[in-house]
Structure formats: C-alpha cells, structure tokens
C-alpha cells in the first residue's frame, strides 16, 4: 500500500516521492533494530504543528495526501538518545544492505572534559544515511549533568567527503545544543509511523535558542596552575552553599518561566575557572527587565529565601537581593536594553546614589555549571571584560562594586521622596 500511495502522490507536481521512500526505508531499518529515533526536522515539525490537533486525534488514520514527507528536500532530521541503543555493528550492515551509504561524525566526549585529563574513546555525534538523492541526518543526544540533553557540533575531519551532503544546510550541528528531555508522541503522518516531540511548537521554540557553550576547561586548568585552588574548609563550605543556592534559585525561576543568566562574579567563575569563586561570597544572576514578574519575590520567599533588599523600581535600576543560608546572598540584577547597549543599575543605600553598569549587546547560550543547565551570555568574553576589565584573569579579593567595575558610571541620585520605594532594606 505504501507503493500505491506513493505512486498516487508521486505524480503530483512539486512533490518528491524519493524522500518519502527513503524515510520509510530508514524507519523500517531502525524499527527492525529497535532503535528509538524521533523526528526533529524543523521544517516538517513546523507543518505538523499546524495540524497537531488532527494528528493527535487520529493516530492511525490514513492520509489523504502526502503533506509532510514529500516536499523535496535534501535531508530529513531525526534524533537518537545515545543511551537507548547499543551501537550494534549489525545495524550499519543492514543499512548498507538496504543501499544506504553512511557517514559517522565522531569527536571528543565533552563529559570527560572536566578538570582532569581524561581521554576516552571518541563518541559519535552525528550520522548521515544517504540513499539516492535523499539523506537522513541522525543527531545523537547525550544526557549531561544538570538533567538535560546535549548534541555536539558537526565538524568534518580530514578525508571526509565534503560533498557527501550539503553540510552547510543541515539544521543541527552548526553549534552544539542543549535541550530538555522531550516527551514523545507516536503519530502517523503520510502513512508513516514516527515519534515526534509531543509539543512541536515548544520544541521549535527551544531549538531557536539551544546553542550550548562548553566551559573552557583547558583555560581553567591553566588558571589553577597559576593560582592554585583554595581548598580550605571555608572555601569548600562556601562552594557547597553557593551551589545549593544556585540550584534553588534556578528551580524557582524556571518554575516561574523567568529566563536568567549567570552574571558578575558567578559568570566570571564559570568563564575563568569553571567553578564558583570561593571568595566571592554571593551568587549573581541577571534577568532582562522585560521578563520581570511580580511573583518573583513571593516565589523566593516561599522557597525559603527572604528578601534582603530591593533597590530601584521596574522602570529603573531594579535590583533584588535574597538571603540564603549563612550569609550567602543571592543578587538578582535586572538588565535594561537600549539600541546599542544593555545596562543594569546599582544603588548606594545610605546616599541614594545611583550607578549604571554598561554592557555591549549580548545573546544567551546554555552551559553546564555545577550540575545545572543555565544560561550565560554567549559573548562571554566581552561581558566579563566590560565588567572586570582586561585584567579579569587575575583574581582580586577586594572588590568595591561602586568603583572597581570598569563599566560603572555615576547615574545621579534618587529623589528623596522616592527613597521609601526604591531603597528597601529588610
């Protein structure tokens, strides 16, 4: 019936049954080897999303026309969770027997890239299966600490046929990416049974900001060569508390759906030494003011973090500080976007003086930090340099937030009549 179906469809103009055939063969191949792949092709998911109600309600219904898999494309993209299959050699044998040519792209395992020099076997990051004029791009996802999935970049090594597929057009592989573990749904589209993310639109949304940055472990090692790590009891204790405070803050903000990133000293710690700076004494987060929600304060209080102070107001220089366990403080700075820069504000409580910290424009990337998937500015170096100047690589123990930052500007004084509102200390 598949053949009959395609005969019918293939004759229609602008449609390409080759693709449908290749996808069908590929799905047959993976199901005969019990390999659970799911569809992540953004173009198809975009189409599927429009019809999602209908597709959900008729999981087995025959399709009147070939709507999704017949648009002529060079490739179709699927995902594979690494831990769900056993790397059987037999699978590739069968693929070859069916006429597939395949290419495996391997590279170092980033999960071994911590502070020690470990070298494991290289891991497969991408597979490409080509049959006739169509290719299947299979992206391998790995579980990482922080309860998320990661896929690697696609980089070709020497001797690889650069024309095997139009690599530049692939939707995955330009950068590594981080994703939540998706809920899957088995659907029948174009008479093919295939797993898709249960909510295609949120998957597509996630995909658009999925870029992942690996911590700079090698530079961090070099840093610790120069400045040996503080292994004192106090340092160990502070790191432990900072880590649990960060976990709690991330949980609270994620539940509210508020996007945040590592800022100031916490960001510097990640970028410079892939760890919490033990003498920093607080945890710093950034939030775009457009993502501000009034629920933030009650949510933190509910999580056991009382408000310590609130400076500024939503319209100007907002800054919140919550009291964590034993003197460890959580500072949340709100960032205001202008045409050519981004800034956040500071307030000196006793004088009502205002300060402004300027940053070049940045976007957000995911990273892994203390077993957490969190955002950092993608343009981290510019961000850190704006804040700490060109000497950011040298640890400084005395830091005055009013004068030390290289991007600080005086920003006037709060009018006295506003003080009750913009300077609240608890």
């Amino acid at each position, binding site marked *: 019936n598949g053949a009959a179906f395609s005969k019918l469809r293939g004759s229609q103009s602008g449609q390409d049954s080759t693709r449908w055939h290749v996808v069908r063969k590929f799905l047959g191949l993976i199901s005969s080897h019990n390999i659970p792949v799911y569809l992540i092709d953004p173009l198809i998911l975009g189409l599927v999303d429009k019809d999602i109600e209908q597709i959900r309600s008729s999981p087995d219904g025959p399709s009147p026309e070939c709507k999704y898999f017949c648009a002529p494309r060079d490739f179709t993209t699927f995902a594979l969770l690494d831990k769900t299959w*056993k790397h059987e050699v037999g699978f590739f044998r069968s693929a070859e027997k069916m006429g597939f040519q395949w290419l495996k792209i391997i590279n170092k395992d980033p999960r071994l890239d911590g502070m020690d020099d470990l070298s494991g076997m290289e891991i497969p990051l991408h597979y490409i299966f080509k049959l006739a004029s169509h290719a299947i791009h299979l992206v391998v996802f790995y579980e990482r600490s922080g309860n998320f999935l990661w896929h690697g970049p696609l980089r070709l090594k020497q001797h690889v046929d650069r024309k095997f597929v139009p690599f530049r057009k692939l939707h995955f592989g330009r950068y590594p990416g981080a994703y939540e573990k998706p809920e899957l749904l088995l659907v029948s589209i174009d008479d093919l049974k295939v797993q898709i993310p249960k909510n295609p639109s949120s998957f597509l949304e996630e995909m658009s900001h999925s870029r992942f940055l690996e911590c700079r472990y090698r530079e961090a090692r070099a840093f610790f060569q120069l400045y040996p790590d503080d292994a004192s009891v106090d340092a160990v204790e502070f790191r432990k508390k900072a880590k649990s405070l960060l976990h709690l803050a991330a949980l609270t903000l994620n539940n509210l759906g508020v996007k945040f990133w590592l800022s100031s000293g916490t960001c510097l710690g990640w970028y410079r030494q892939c760890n919490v700076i033990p003498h920093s004494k607080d945890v710093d987060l950034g939030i775009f003011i457009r993502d501000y929600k009034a629920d933030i304060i009650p949510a933190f209080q509910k999580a056991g973090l009382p408000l310590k102070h609130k400076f500024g107001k939503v319209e100007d220089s907002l800054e919140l500080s919550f009291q964590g366990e034993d003197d460890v403080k959580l500072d949340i700075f709100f960032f205001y976007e202008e045409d050519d820069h981004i800034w956040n504000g500071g307030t000196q409580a006793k004088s009502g003086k205002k300060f402004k910290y300027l940053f070049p424009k940045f976007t957000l990337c995911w990273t892994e930090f203390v077993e957490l998937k969190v955002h950092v500015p993608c343009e981290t170096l510019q961000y850190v340099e704006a804040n700490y100047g060109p000497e950011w690589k040298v640890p400084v123990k005395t830091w005055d937030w009013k004068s030390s930052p290289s991007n600080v500007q005086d920003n006037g004084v709060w009018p006295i009549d506003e003080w009750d509102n913009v300077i609240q200390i608890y």
Partner: protein
Amino acid sequence: MDEWKPNPAVKPHKKRSWYLAWKYKLMNQRALRKLCQTGAVLFLLVTVIVNIKLILDTRRAAYEEEEESAQDYDDDMLNVEVPRHPVNNKKVLDVEVYSSRSKVYVAVDGTTVLEDEAREQGRGIHVIVLNQATGHVMAKRVFDTYSPHEDEAMVLFLNMVARGRILIFTIKDEGSFHLKETAKNVLKSLGSQVAPFLSWRDMWTFVGKKGGEVYGEKHAKSPALSTWGDPVLLKTEVHLTSVEDAECHWPDTELNRRRRRFCSKVEGYGSVCSCKDPTPIEFNPDPLKDNKVFDVPVAVIAGNRPNYLYRMLRSLLSAQGVNPQMITVFIDGYYEEPMDVVELFGLSGIQHTPISIKNARVSQHYKASLTATFNLFPDAKFAVVLEEDLDISVDFFSFLSQSIHLLEEDESLYCISAWNDQGYEHTAEDPSLLYRVETMPGLGWVLRKSLYKDELEPKWPTPEKLWDWDMWMRMPEQRKGRECIIPDISRSYHFGIVGLNMNGYFHEAYFKKHKFNTVPNVQLKNVESLRKDNYETEIHRLLGEAEVLDHSKNPCEDSFVPDTEGRVYVMFIRMEQEADFTTWTQLAKCLHIWDLDVRGNHKGLWRLFRKKNHFLVVGVPASPYSSKKPSSVTPIYMEPPAKEEGAVAVPAAEQT
C-alpha cells in the same frame, strides 16, 4: 627518528598515546641523551617537518563552518591523522639483542624496543614476543629468575605464547640462580642450545620462533663467581611470514573480529587466542529478576596490569545481572595493553593522564574516575567501584540488588561493600548474612552520588597530599560516624600480588585465605534488620541468645569454642574506651585475621564464625553491649608483645 611501528591500522587514541609517549620521551633525560648521540639535527629536522605537515593538514581540514573558536581548532590538531611511515613491505627484520651485567637492549630494524640500564632493577631474563608477520611487539616481560618461583611464571608465560611467534631472550645481571630444570627444558625445546648449561652470571641472548627455527644465540660464560660474563651482542635477521599465516582462521563474526584485533597485537593471554578452541569473550550470564542495580554505573579502576584486568573483567562479565553498557574502565596512564583488553571485551575505556606520584596519583585517578562516572551517567544515584585485581562473585549484582535500597534510605550508611575484612576461610560461614561495620572495607563497593558530589569531591585530597584515598575516606572527618554494610562471605576476592603496597608475603598472610562466595542467587537473610535501629534490636536479640564462653580458657586455643555447629557464642574482652583495641589486636593476631588496623567493628562488637558457630566479641566496658556481660565474667585481657620484639617492619596496612 620517532618510534617505528609496523602496524599502520592504529586507532585515534593510540595515536594520541604515541604522541604523548614521544613527548614524554623528549623530557626523559636518558632518551634525550641517546637522541643527541644519534643525531639531534636530524631529529629537529624531522620534528619541524612533521609539525609543518601537521599545521598544513589542520589548515586543510578547515571546517565547514566558519565560526570556529580557537579551542575547537586546537582540538582538531589532536585528531588529525598523524603522517606515518609507508607500510613496510620488507620481509626481513634486523634484530639486535644485547645482554650484559648492567644493561640490556633489543632493537628491531633499528628501533629500540627494549632498553634497560637502570641500576638495581630489571634483573633476570627479559622476554620479548614479536608478531611473526608484522614484527610488532606483542609482549614484554622480565622474569627475575635469580629469585625463586619466577622461572615458573616464565614457563607459564611461554606456554601461553602462540606457536609461530618470535621470541627474544636476554639476561641482565643474573638469570640462572633459580632457573630450574623445567624452565631450562622449555628454553631447550624452543631451540636454545645454551639454556641447559646457563650458570651463575652468564650473559645470554637468544632469538627463535616458537615451534620453529632458531635465528641466533650468543652466550658468554662467567669466568669466576665474583665476576660476570662479557657483554654479548647478537645481530640476526628474522624472516617475516604473511599475515594470513600469523592469524587463526576463526569464523568471521563481530566477536571474532575483536578477538583477531586483540590476538594480533598482544601475547600472553592463553586460550583466548587459541586457534582451535578459543575461550569465549562474551558470557551472557543469566539476567537477574527485578535487578535494582541494572542501571548503576560500574567504574573499574585500573593501572597497567593488563593480565589482571583481563581476569577481573572475565569474572565481572560472568556475574549474573551484569550490564556491560554501564561498565567503564578507567586506566591510569596512556597504556595501550589495558585498553586492548577493554576493547577485546567490547567495553568502554578511558585513559587518564598521570598527574601525581604514587599514592597521590592513585588518589587523583580515583577522583577523576568517580567524577567522570557521574558525568557519563548523570541519572545515576550510585556507582559501583571496582579495582583491576578483584575477582567478582557470581552473585555480586544479586547481593547489591537486594541491599541497595538501604543505601538509598538509611542516611546512617556510608557504603555497601562486597568485602569482609575479617571474612577468612575459617571465620566466615553464612553467604546470606550481612553486617554493619564502622570501617570502610573498599575492594568492590557502592558509592552514593550525593555523598561523592556534596561531601567527598569538593574536599578530595589535592595531589600534593600523599594520602591513600581509602585511608582518607576512613577518617572520621569524612565518615562522620556512618557505617558500611558488608556480607559475612565476601563477594570479591583480592588476587593482586603486584601493587603499590602489595607483595607476595603480604598477600599470602592477609588475602590468600579470604573466603569468596561461589554460590549463585543467594537470598540474603533479613535485609531489613540492617537498618540503623533494627540492627540494634537484632544485636540485642543475638546477645540474648548467645552462650557465654568459658573465660578461663585461652581464647586463642581451638578448644575455646566447643565442638558444636550453628550455635551463637559470646566472649568479652577488655576495651577501656572507644579507641582501646589492645586486646582485640592480640586476639585478631592469634585468630589469624586482619590485625594491621581495626576492621569490622560495630560499637565495640565484632561478629565472625569459629568452627561454624557465630562468634561474638564484645569490648568491655566501652561497648554499649557490655551490659550483657554476666557479673561473674571478667573480660579477657591480652598483653601486646614488648616493643623490641615488634620491631619487624610491617607492610603498610593497605587494602588496594
């Protein structure tokens, strides 16, 4: 100038290890001196050319994507195919073998494959095995046949080498003192004419094919007891055979492809490489019903003892309920042969750059391995930690599957260990019985992720602290009064006799007679009674039922315990305060159990078996169980030997 390697099909990580070996060699004084002698200029030229080529190759391998960070760029430097010598089509190998009092070396086609001129090291017969088709070095061993029993090990090794391999022998210093008839006959059967007459301080070199021709032999007799024979240098040629002839004709399966790769590279593993009837490398033990540890990662900590690792992995992969996908072998150093063993069994292996020395190095290797384990398996709540010199009991996973929920639920637990420090042949009896102990035995244990991530990892001893990781873990600052669960009969067996703190004598005295469970599917008894409070109830019940032994008798004598079976007996020893182990140590000594430090205690109570009776020892008055002592009984006190007598150095109390 770089090392000649006839095998062109080398894996990427091997290339890396070659690269590092080459780097280390540069730093090595001795090698440097030799390189200088043989032409530093040439070397530099080659280095420059290789580097330029590397850079050019890397440039050419420019990525599809433009946005490349410098880091990625460098990464690929390591991944680039290192230009290699063209495949050597020559059919003849030039072999040079040198034997003398202070130095031996072997060179194959001008490449030094063995060089040993270290003082007070490497005495005895050095043996090298070459692949008869490729000339690749498959094994390198030294047998100190000046000392007893080493000749037996050599015979064992030579018997395991496949027919047709090329064997090279050379003596350094002295190799005949304990070279017995049997060994001499084996050498004779290989074609040596000199071996039967080898004597004190003779120098000797020999090259021959196992079961085939002799390529050369040279010998220099020692003229007198006090002097050595003159150095001998043997130069000869060896004719290579075709690859076809050098390999077995096993059916072409995935498993046999792994086997072939392994067997054409290394030697000395016996029947796994037998052409006729090779031993299996896949075991398919029965799965466990309701296996609670199927998804628990298993970290195997290994060094460069590939034969041990081979034995260990065989037993691990034969244990019921094993999940090979969860096993990772962590190799301390860039050693190829352990990695070959790992690949033979189709497991994943990770190499770790050495960053410290001795104990601290082991300790750093442990840390890196544990961190990596939890990174690779971020969902895991536990990890099983094993070492390369352990046999694993057939019911190892069954034992863990039945007990692991305790580690999850009972916060007063520190670990579950497969090893009972006091479980010797004569003191362990019941495979279904578990204990709680205040000491951490190691040697096959389960670590809770939260314990590692929240407590141990952040303050793990830094490389400059020369601490044993296990001693550190036993310190009160880390253990914090928590206990480990252990079985009466161990589920692991420590077979290693070559190790950092290990020698034959020590192994014989403390490990050889350890009891090891061989019964499959043992149903553990009363697991719930191991919870903190339940265990106290259980101990009180036991003590209530126990018969008090006759304290007027000598507890070291066999007659101290009646000739019964299946009874429970208790004795009371003097223990003034919590840390007073004077009498216990003397008792442990005379019972021939672990006495180098205190192990296996729970609140001043020890549990073991004597003559198949459960035997309880309570330290009075320190133990809270002292109240069970009848007032008529005087606790036994045993005096330590006077200090002067105890001056014999005892090996470090070490477990690993």
